[in-house]
């Protein structure tokens, strides 16, 4: 009796465990159904592949996106166009680096990985990635045609290519100051053209409307106003030397100015805690008159403002001029993604063949903007999306890309902006305003991965941004800036700046 009950108990426990792990084992075997269906589709259209033979299934690791990559129309398109069945896995939205390290260190099998700059550099220097020079030479005619010579540098370490660089949509600016134009008109104010005029305008609005006129967010400190003071990019070429913005003497002037706005109640005291959603909320609810708008949130911002004030109008303030009357805009052209082939892959050639097939001119066009007449139409040399089909099929297309046709992508990409007329108008207005200024490209944009830079960049950026917020909010005195700068250098800034300059000087010979 006694024994039986205990045995039954333990048996029950073991069974539960077995049942559970059994259930778990079944789960994944039922899950490949999407890729299995992709498989059958692929074999149904064997003509798509160029050699007609059965192609192996490739596994690709991609960055996070809020959708199921194995069910997405884009994945079906890629398989149909290239003949390769592909299984997609995503990094998590948070802790992506940690997860990536765990997977790579434990030799989890992937044939392709789409990596961010820091991730790419880490894996490449740890020897986890395959050098691709020869494979690209042999199997990648389309790759060579699609990627411009300038771009390859960012994916080279010690003269070897470790990834296909994926650049973005070309030179474009994202943010610009906007203002409640209806209030400006009511008060008879002109758009400010420099920081001094901005100060006067903010003061006038504050007096007339009794609000804190300018709001901002903790994530967007620089740009516009900073640029007008000479803090243009993260790295700036001063007399042929790279100077980090933390080292610029102009930084102090910028901070003193912002602190003045803050302490006089012209700049939102909650800037250090504002998210971009909060800033939009303040602007659209009439609690702020001016803020830095990103064009991609323009349509929601405008709709929200109209909800509260149907008569309200948004005015775009042209980029401010510095004391010598020149307006500048800083842009960064750095490679966004790196498509690498890990050493553990057993299908390295196929991986490159797949990338190559995806960069074939027409295939890439199909991936970027779909089919003419179905997903997009051509009007006056510009691509316009056909909605809702474009959104239904191509919303997530960019996540699937493995390198872009750099000659055409900036043109294709703009179809995404034309999904919405409000979005489009802001995008175009910002670009037009930027075209009237001197566009300064961050000289580090095209740099290859450099050890001391990769190691320190994120930490030092955080250190500086935190300190900058403290100066703006007045919780630290700007008189101590030099003490901070010394600390910043000691925490790695010194070698950071030196390594950047070593590279920069080497490009000049």
């Amino acid at each position, binding site marked *: 009796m006694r024994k039986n009950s205990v045995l039954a108990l333990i048996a029950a426990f073991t069974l539960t465990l077995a049942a559970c792990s059994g259930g778990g084992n079944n789960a994944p075997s039922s899950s490949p159904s999407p890729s299995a269906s992709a498989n059958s589709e692929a074999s149904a259209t064997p003509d798509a592949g160029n050699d007609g033979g059965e192609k192996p299934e490739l596994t690709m690791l991609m960055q996070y996106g809020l959708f199921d990559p194995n069910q997405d129309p884009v994945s079906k398109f890629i398989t149909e166009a290239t003949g390769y069945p592909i299984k997609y896995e995503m990094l998590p939205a948070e802790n992506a680096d940690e997860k990536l390290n765990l997977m790579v260190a434990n030799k989890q099998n992937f044939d392709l990985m789409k990596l961010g700059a820091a991730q790419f550099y880490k894996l490449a220097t740890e020897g986890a990635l395959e050098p691709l020079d020869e494979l690209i030479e042999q199997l990648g005619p389309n790759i060579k045609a699609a990627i411009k010579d300038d771009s390859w540098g960012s994916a080279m370490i010690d003269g070897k290519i470790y990834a296909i660089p994926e650049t973005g949509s070309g030179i474009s600016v994202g943010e610009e100051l906007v203002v409640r134009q209806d209030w400006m008109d009511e008060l008879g104010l002109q758009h400010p053209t420099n920081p001094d005029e901005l100060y006067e305008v903010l003061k006038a609005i504050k007096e007339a409307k009794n609000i804190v006129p300018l709001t901002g967010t903790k*994530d967007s400190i620089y740009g516009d106003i900073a640029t007008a003071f000479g803090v243009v990019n993260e790295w700036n070429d001063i007399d042929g030397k790279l100077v980090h913005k933390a080292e610029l003497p102009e930084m102090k002037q910028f901070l003193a100015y912002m602190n003045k706005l803050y302490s006089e109640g012209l700049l939102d005291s909650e800037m250090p805690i504002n998210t971009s959603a909060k800033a939009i*909320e303040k602007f659209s609810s009439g609690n702020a008159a001016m803020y830095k708008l990103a064009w991609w949130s323009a349509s929601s911002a405008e709709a929200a403002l109209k909800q509260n004030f149907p008569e309200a109008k948004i005015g775009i303030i042209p980029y401010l001029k510095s004391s010598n009357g020149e307006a500048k805009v800083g842009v960064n052209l750095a490679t966004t993604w790196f498509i690498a082939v890990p050493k553990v892959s057993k299908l390295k050639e196929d991986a490159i063949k797949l990338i190559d097939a995806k960069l074939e001119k027409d295939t890439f066009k199909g991936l970027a903007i779909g089919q003419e007449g179905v997903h997009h139409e051509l009007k006056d040399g510009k691509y316009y999306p056909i909605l809702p089909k474009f959104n239904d099929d191509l919303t997530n297309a960019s996540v699937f890309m493995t390198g872009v046709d750099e000659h055409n992508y900036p043109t294709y990409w703009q179809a995404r902006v034309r999904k919405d007329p409000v979005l489009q108008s802001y995008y175009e207005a910002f670009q037009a305003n930027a075209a009237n200024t001197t566009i300064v490209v961050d000289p580090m944009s095209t740099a290859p991965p450099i050890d001391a830079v990769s190691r320190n960049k994120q930490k030092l950026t955080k250190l500086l941004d935190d300190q900058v917020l403290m100066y703006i909010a007045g919780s630290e005195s700007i008189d101590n800036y030099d003490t901070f700068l010394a600390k910043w250098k000691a925490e790695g800034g010194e070698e950071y700046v030196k390594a950047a300059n070593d590279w920069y000087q080497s490009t000049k010979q």
Partner: protein
Amino acid sequence: MSLKQTFSEKLFNVFNYTFFILLGFSTLLPFINLIAKSLSSESAVISGKVNLLPVGFQMGTYRYVLENDMFLNALKTSVLLAIVGTAVGLFVTTITAYPLSRVQLRGRKWLLLMFIFTMLFSGGLIPTYLLMQELGLINKLPVLFLPAAINVFNMLIIKNYFEGLPDGLEESAKIDGASNVRILFSIILPLSLPVLATIALFFAVAFWNDYFTAMIYITDQDLKPLQLFLKELLVSSSGEFLKDNVDAALNTTPQSIQAASILLATLPILFVYPFLQKYFVKGVLLGSVKG
């Protein structure tokens, strides 16, 4: 007993009820605000106009979330995980707590110390990940509940409860020749419903709320639980994630849909507590045994 209340008792009652009404409102209002947001037009939400009542009423958000396969899959996983995980966890934890609550167990002190040690020290993520990989548990459902099945905190609460039960209960059963296991299942457990209900709730809620384990060990879309889905939905619309990623910024999830998702991901687990509350009724069980 007596219906008479002293003045101070009346005063206390007034204070007590008022206090809980206020406290209840403070915890309820944010949820009402979420409901209002989920039922409002997106532009009204963005402009900060929505407080306790919807502005620009719509219900499309709920339709959108409930028609999303990822949400439905995640809901299935979470419900399954909460049920199986709670069953296994409660079982293992209870049968571990019982021997550890018996003074006659030799080495009890060291065993307890061995359990408590794991609350404070851990080998970290890297060796654990390696272990899961070797056990073939990556992307399998058991990875989400098996390691958590023996929960030392919950075990100690059950053990503490067992120790509080009158000693006389098992003495008589022992004299009748009942085994320890029999005593546990036929005498101790029926008297332990309040603590078992509590621990069941703790397990269910812990499994329901856990996104981290799944974030590390699960990449299979079909096995992602609801809280991971929710987390990723919120993170992928946050400033940190969208920085320098224009394509992602163009596809953010509207705030009204975020609100609807939070509510729909929380609602199912909220029903567990009222259901378990009936086991908390004071003293009923002990009283019935004695009587």
